[in-house]
């Protein structure tokens, strides 16, 4: 009988805690599939952030370390420098990476640390219940922008891929989305390439994954995916910013 669905080995057989309809579970699965396909689970060390995915070290079968809020790229740097032959990745949300940890991500990228960052951007703080993120869209209502995000009060959304792709140390930069099957397949390709770039020793690689938060957006999973497509993608255009043609 043909196997049509199988849990990737790199994903542990435990229930995940995410809200129904949350795309973190899919992103975890894509990473695990890539670890399986590249056969690198045994030599991979992941770094968990602070945020809704703070304990995704429970979900991956590879070695994992939990980092303080925003510090995952520094922690990953420490690990990678001790084990240059291993594969090191960070998994970070928009508050973690683009607010409190801006210095760490910019400098890990500018040093060209041979690590891979999976950056999940859902334009809101999920863990602390729906506050404004650096990536919150203009006019988007959050618990700390109850009248909508106003540029004159709250500034503008930060485009992480565009920012990091100006750095020479960042060699692979791509933005993907979770809003439909085709894009999910694209996301997997990007994640795989990012890991391959690291393994080839080229430099820092990052994949920004546009993602949803049905609970804090107050939308059904379907509506949330549509909202992502209609509102986030115009602000955060999909595609490769750097390293598309890198030989790996």
């Amino acid at each position, binding site marked *: 009988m043909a196997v049509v669905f199988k849990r990737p080995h790199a994903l542990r057989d435990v229930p995940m805690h995410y809200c129904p309809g949350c795309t973190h579970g899919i992103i975890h699965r894509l990473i695990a599939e890539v670890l399986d396909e590249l056969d690198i689970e045994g030599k991979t*060390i992941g770094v968990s952030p602070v945020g809704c995915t703070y*304990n995704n*070290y429970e979900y991956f079968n590879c070695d*994992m*370390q939990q*980092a303080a809020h925003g510090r995952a790229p520094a*922690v990953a740097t*420490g690990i990678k*420098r001790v084990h240059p032959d291993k594969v090191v990745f960070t998994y970070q949300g928009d508050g973690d990476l683009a607010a409190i940890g801006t210095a760490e991500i910019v400098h890990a990228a500018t040093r060209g640390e041979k690590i891979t960052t999976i950056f999940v951007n859902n334009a809101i703080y999920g863990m602390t219940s729906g506050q404004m993120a650096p990536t919150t869209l203009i006019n988007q209502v959050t618990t700390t922008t109850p009248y909508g995000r106003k540029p004159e009060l709250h500034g503008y959304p930060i485009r992480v891929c565009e920012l990091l792709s100006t750095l020479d140390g960042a060699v692979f930069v791509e933005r993907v989305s979770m809003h439909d099957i085709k894009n999910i397949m694209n996301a997997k390709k990007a994640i795989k390439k990012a890991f391959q770039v690291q393994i080839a020793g080229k430099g820092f690689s990052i994949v920004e994954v546009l993602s949803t938060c049905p609970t804090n957006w107050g939308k059904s999973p379907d509506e949330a995916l549509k909202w992502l497509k209609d509102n986030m993608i115009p602000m955060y255009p999909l595609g490769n910013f750097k390293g598309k043609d890198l030989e790996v």
Partner: protein
Amino acid sequence: MGEKLLMKGNEVIAEAALRAGCRCYFGYPITPQTEIAHYLAKKMPQVGGTFIQAESEIAAINMVYGAAGAGARVMTSSSSPGISLKQEGISYISGAELPAVIVNIVRCGPGLGGILPAQCDYFQAVKGGGHGDYKMVVLAPSSVQELYELTVEAFNIADRYRILTMIMGDGILGQMMETVEFRDEEEIIKVDKDWATTGTEMKRDHNTITSIYINPEVLEKHNQKLQAKYRKIEENEVRVETFNCDGADIIVAAYGTVARIIKNVIKMAEKEGIKVGLIRPITLWPFPVAAFEKYSEVPKAFLSVELNAGQMVEDVRLAVNGKRPVYFHGRMGGMLPTQKEILDKIKEIVKGD
């Protein structure tokens, strides 16, 4: 002993770390400890190690957290304001029980303060500057030779107990040169770090390093385990120098640079017929309580001399436990007490009965 050299304190810390097998250093420049970074920037590549000038002290301590979790012998160094920035990481490293070494060449604060010698970070180091019930072993050398010995020892203690160990000095210790004799080979304890993130190689279950415990009962158990470890360290790792204490009229408590000054004061006092003893804590935590208990029948009193407004004196009082008066003399702002002013204070106490 092996090679004898004239070296700066900061250089000796760096050299000792290398000899102790430290191959990872992460730091950010700040006076007066920067020579540690200069030395290691030059030497680390020669021994295949890693030197990173991080973007901030916060990043540096988190690189330490990552490298320690990955099983390496790792060190960072800074001075007071930089150590404040590291406190978040210090708490995480303590919570996750990782071994690492931190050097604090203390400046005089608060705020940006100044670069001259001070001991105003005593509370921060021994009572915890970061959040949570954690302890670090805090070593306070008072000579360049001791900087070498204790830096090597710091790595061994860290590995033995899976704990952070801090070397605490001041600008004088960091900047002064003295002779130092290195051993030909260090005794480096070997610890099996089977908890480290080294990659499973598909041969074992995954290792996870974390300081989060979802279940409050489990978190309490984890804390109890930490506390039990701290009690064990208090039993086994106290280091103290007692000098001239038997038959002394008065005992001075002082550590680091100040203890050096006291040794001169002891000579001056002897000429005036006063016998002064010195208890010099080498471990500030665990504090050498037993040494103070042993001499708590000293005829006159105890005097704590510090480069701050009175910090260690609290631990001296707890150790002496009311059996004798405990006096304090301190200077701040980078000022050092002169031998004469300390002697005057001693004479005032001795006469005061």
